[in-house]
């Protein structure tokens, strides 16, 4: 499995020189995982296949916007797949809409400050280890949040705990992650 540095280099090669081999390598690693992500969120196999290819086409076209200082390539591709999925189901639910919003981005396009960039970099490198150190019940709530359509109500039901407990676990998980990343724990 390629390391995150290797994946970052591949993404940069795609961005700088439209490197098709680098793109194929990114595809090999990410496309099957993007499809798993979509299927786990309840997308039928055929549609998941189609959206996966669409997501990878976006990866090619948006490669110039990839900024290794700001996010890892996994995070960048995750946000592309997430937005594509959200936009797709939104369009399906709104057939009366006249014009499609071009490449709807969830996040406002804001430039981070230099100190934010530094934090982002530190954060990304330590995140995996930090997540491994997270208490199991907190990690579970985070994981379910990314794979459930309506996170809180469904998670509460699934785990048989009150909604407030889900919210407090999310808060604890985020607090915990931040402290682990800051080296406070």
């Amino acid at each position, binding site marked *: 499995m390629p390391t995150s540095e290797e994946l970052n280099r591949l993404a940069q090669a795609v961005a700088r020189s439209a490197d098709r081999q680098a793109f194929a390598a990114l*595809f090999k690693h990410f496309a099957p995982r993007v499809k798993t992500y979509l299927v786990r969120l309840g997308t039928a196999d055929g549609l998941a296949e189609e959206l996966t290819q669409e997501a990878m086409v976006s990866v090619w076209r948006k490669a110039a916007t990839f900024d290794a200082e*700001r996010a890892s390539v996994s995070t960048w591709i995750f946000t592309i797949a997430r937005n594509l999925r959200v936009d797709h189901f939104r369009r399906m*639910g709104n057939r009366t809409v006249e014009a499609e919003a071009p490449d709807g981005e969830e996040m406002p396009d804001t430039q981070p400050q230099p100190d934010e960039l530094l934090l982002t970099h530190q954060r990304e490198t330590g995140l995996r280890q930090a997540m491994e150190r997270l208490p199991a019940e907190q990690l579970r709530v985070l994981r379910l949040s990314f794979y459930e359509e309506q996170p809180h109500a469904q998670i509460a039901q699934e785990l048989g705990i009150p909604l407030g407990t889900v919210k407090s676990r999310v808060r604890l998980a985020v607090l915990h992650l931040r402290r682990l990343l800051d080296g406070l724990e």
Partner: protein
Amino acid sequence: MMTIQHHPDDDLLLALAAGSLARGHSVVVASHLEHCAHCRQRVELLEAVGGTMLDALPPALLAPEALARTMAAIDAPVERTGARPSAPHPALPAGMRWPQSLAGCSATRWRWLGPGMRWSRVTLPDDAAANVFLLRIGAGKNLPAHTHSDCELTQVLYGAFHDGRARFGPGDFDEADGSFEHQPVVEAGGECICLASVDGRVLFKGAIARTLGALVGM
């Protein structure tokens, strides 16, 4: 530089990062992020959690021609969708900017709601059913007293109000549910404009408030 005191909870930001937050709520949270580097960092952390999880997922089986098809698609000419047409929105006080998160959304002109109270219905291009609106309330006026059957998100765009617990100024974010009876009062110094999104039905008390409920279809 505004000082932001009230931020969205982690669970809202997590839902945004995971792509599961309702569209109406997303634009209100996004309008907060435009002005809040602190919350942008929190969202980026959560997105990085999503990215780390994506990386750790077991690979699915792809169609044999998946890569070839994708390669063919990247060679196809890109359809230019063009810039979004600038949609109409109500007149704003000098110095107030239309939130970027509402780009492409249309909003009605200011409509009379009561003495010193006006509102504008915001229509999202990709979710016509979302209950998103702007409230423009004059200095010293009360917002209609109401409780919530569900969740209401409010972002202060201009001016300030006090809700009996705390002051909410420009850039501040408020989440309210049925547990608290709201009676926000706008500060005496000037009017206040808020962007709000409602999930459930808002239970207003009083005639004007009921009219608002009927107008907004809540």
